[in-house]
């Protein structure tokens, strides 16, 4: 049984549908084979004649009911040749007054059973008409009366004796319904189990792929139906290729960094001999290049390396970054803080906040930071007093290496990675980072971090 889940989904589905259909057909067939004749036997015109004459009638299936009434309650149906033929036979056999008997198949009830007997009657009609033409005057001619009918005869006192019969629902109708229902109930757990077994590897596969989509690499288990096994193998080899590319990219960036940093180091030794003003300018250029290199490496690292997790006092961490900036002469203030510790990579978060503050002070000259915490979440805001950003700039601001004409990234002189580094660092901690323009101008970077 387990084996069939390793075949293709096509085969499994095909087998499931086929076996369900076969089971239902089997149920119907067994009901048909074991149930008695499916509907009430017809009565004969003699039975009707005896009933109208007030004589006893044998019981077969649904009974013929007799009552006396002032009115018959229905009309003769001259257009129904069958009814007319039967009326004549009843008159002859009951020795009744011709014209005193009326019979109708229209009992006013339109149940399923009535429609079934209409069909039977129509089949019988041609035969009956032929018999009636040949020996309709014979007193022994007893046509059959299928299904529901009502017949009436006027008595001497002017009242009417009415005989009526309602056919019961055909038995097979219930039996088959019951059979199918039983089959369905029996099949339900089987189909449920089967579908679950089929769906589980697909679900595992899709959640693995979803996790991969969010940026983690993991080996997808090769299990389940053939199609899923093939897809899992394909995803695994794709991952191997991508991580190969990333490793290649990382080592290439490291190589470039190495190759650039050595001449930069040479330059800074050469600059040491320059006159003071020139030296300061050259050193500034060297520092800017170094920042581009280290930003690139930071970004690559955030993207590729799992953060280490340790208990960190978040408020003191933010304080230390703010203090460092104000030590270095920038107008940065911590407006509000709230004591909270969280499981985090202290260095990575520090880099995030340092990048945001560096962006804020370079582009917005002055910056404020705040930390609030409630309900297992820390909300951090970095505000500056710069001109903010247009909506189009905001939409692409987090893209690595993105720089628009008026981009704040260009103003920082970095590689256009400040916000990308911040975002990758926050994402690695399961948080979110958003940009908006402040009510009083300036850009507001708001971060939500789960603190556990």
């Amino acid at each position: 049984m387990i084996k069939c889940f390793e075949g293709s989904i096509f085969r499994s589905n095909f087998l499931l549908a086929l076996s369900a259909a076969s089971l239902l057909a089997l149920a119907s067939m067994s009901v048909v084979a074991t149930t008695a004749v499916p509907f009430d036997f017809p009565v004969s015109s003699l039975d009707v004649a005896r009933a109208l004459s007030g004589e006893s009638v044998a019981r077969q299936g649904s009974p013929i009911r007799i009552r006396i009434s002032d009115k018959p309650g229905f009309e003769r149906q001259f257009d129904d040749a069958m009814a007319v033929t039967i009326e004549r036979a009843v008159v002859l056999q009951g020795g009744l007054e011709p014209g005193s008997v009326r019979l109708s198949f229209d009992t006013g009830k339109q149940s399923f059973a009535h429609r079934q007997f209409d069909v039977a009657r129509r089949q019988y009609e041609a035969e009956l008409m032929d018999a009636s033409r040949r020996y309709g005057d014979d007193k022994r001619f007893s046509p059959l009366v299928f299904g529901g009918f009502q017949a009436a005869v006027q008595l001497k006192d002017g009242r009417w004796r009415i005989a009526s019969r309602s056919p019961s629902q055909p038995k097979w109708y219930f039996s088959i319904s019951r059979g199918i229902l039983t089959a369905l109930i029996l099949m339900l757990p089987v189909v449920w189990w089967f579908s679950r077994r089929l769906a589980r590897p697909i679900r595992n596969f899709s959640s693995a792929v979803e996790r991969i989509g969010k940026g983690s690499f993991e080996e997808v288990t090769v299990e389940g139906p053939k199609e899923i096994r093939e897809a899992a193998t394909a995803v695994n080899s794709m991952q191997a290729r991508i991580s190969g590319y990333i490793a290649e990219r990382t080592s290439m960036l490291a190589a470039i960094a190495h190759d650039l940093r050595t001449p930069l180091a040479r330059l800074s030794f050469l600059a040491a001999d320059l006159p003071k003003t020139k030296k300061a300018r050259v050193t500034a250029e060297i520092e800017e290049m170094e920042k581009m290199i280290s930003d690139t490496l930071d970004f690559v690292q955030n993207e590729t390396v799992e953060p280490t997790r340790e208990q960190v006092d978040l408020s003191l961490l933010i304080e230390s970054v703010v203090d460092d900036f104000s030590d270095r002469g920038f107008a940065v203030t911590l407006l509000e803080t709230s004591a909270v510790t969280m499981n985090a990579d202290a260095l990575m978060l520090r880099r995030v906040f340092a990048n945001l503050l560096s962006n804020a002070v370079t582009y917005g000259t002055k910056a404020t930071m705040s930390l609030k915490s409630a309900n297992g979440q820390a909300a951090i805001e970095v505000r500056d007093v710069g001109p903010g950003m247009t909506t189009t700039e905001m939409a692409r601001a987090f893209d690595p290496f993105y720089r628009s004409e008026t981009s704040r990234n260009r103003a920082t002189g970095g590689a256009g990675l400040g916000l990308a580094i911040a975002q990758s660092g926050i994402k690695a901690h399961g948080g979110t980072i958003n940009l908006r323009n402040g009510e009083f101008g300036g850009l507001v970077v708001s971060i939500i971090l789960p603190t556990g």
Partner: protein
Amino acid sequence: MTDLPPDKLHHVVVVDDDPKLRNFAADYLRQHGFRVSCAAGGVELRSIIERDAVDIIVLDVMMPGEDGLAIARDLVGLTEIGIIMASALGSETDRIVGLEVGADDYLPKPFSPRELVARIRAVIRRRSVAAQSTQKGNNLLFEGWRCDLVRGMLSDPADVIVALSPGEFALLRVFLEHPQRILSRDQLLEFSRHDDSDAFDRAIDTQVSRLRRKLASRSDAEFIRTVRQEGYMFIPKVVRQ
């Protein structure tokens, strides 16, 4: 220091596969009062060590053949030699790996010449202090707190990381390396001037009060006492591990 006769000068060996860089660095260090040798790799370095006393090695991490980490690992047993790793990778893990193999300091390229000199002096000073004490290790413990010099991290007794700004960390390090001694503002300034960040020169008192407040926010003990007219003293006993 520049007035010392050549045989009293500290002997620095610059190991780098880039010939121009090692010559530039050597020239600069000579100007600043060091005796300097150059080596292109592990083989040349070892032959220098064999025939001469060496105080400090400035060792490039990424070199063809035997890389800097392997050389450092090999040389760490020679306790009289200080090792400063210089690396163009400059990432945090790279720094930690460099220090964990037992190097005394780690310098990301491109370093400024002044910083190189400052770091060399700091390592020489620290090694002379450390030579007096028998304790070794990169963790400084006090009152349940742990200061990890390799990773530049301070953890409180509950193992929660207490982040310090670079200035505050440098200051704490000076206190931890000179515990239970009165340190004047000038001493604090001189010992903690690890690199040439002039930000730190500004306000030693501000730094001290901030450091004090951060320590106090996670503990009740008294750590740094103000000694009137004289400076500051770090009260707890410090154990190196």
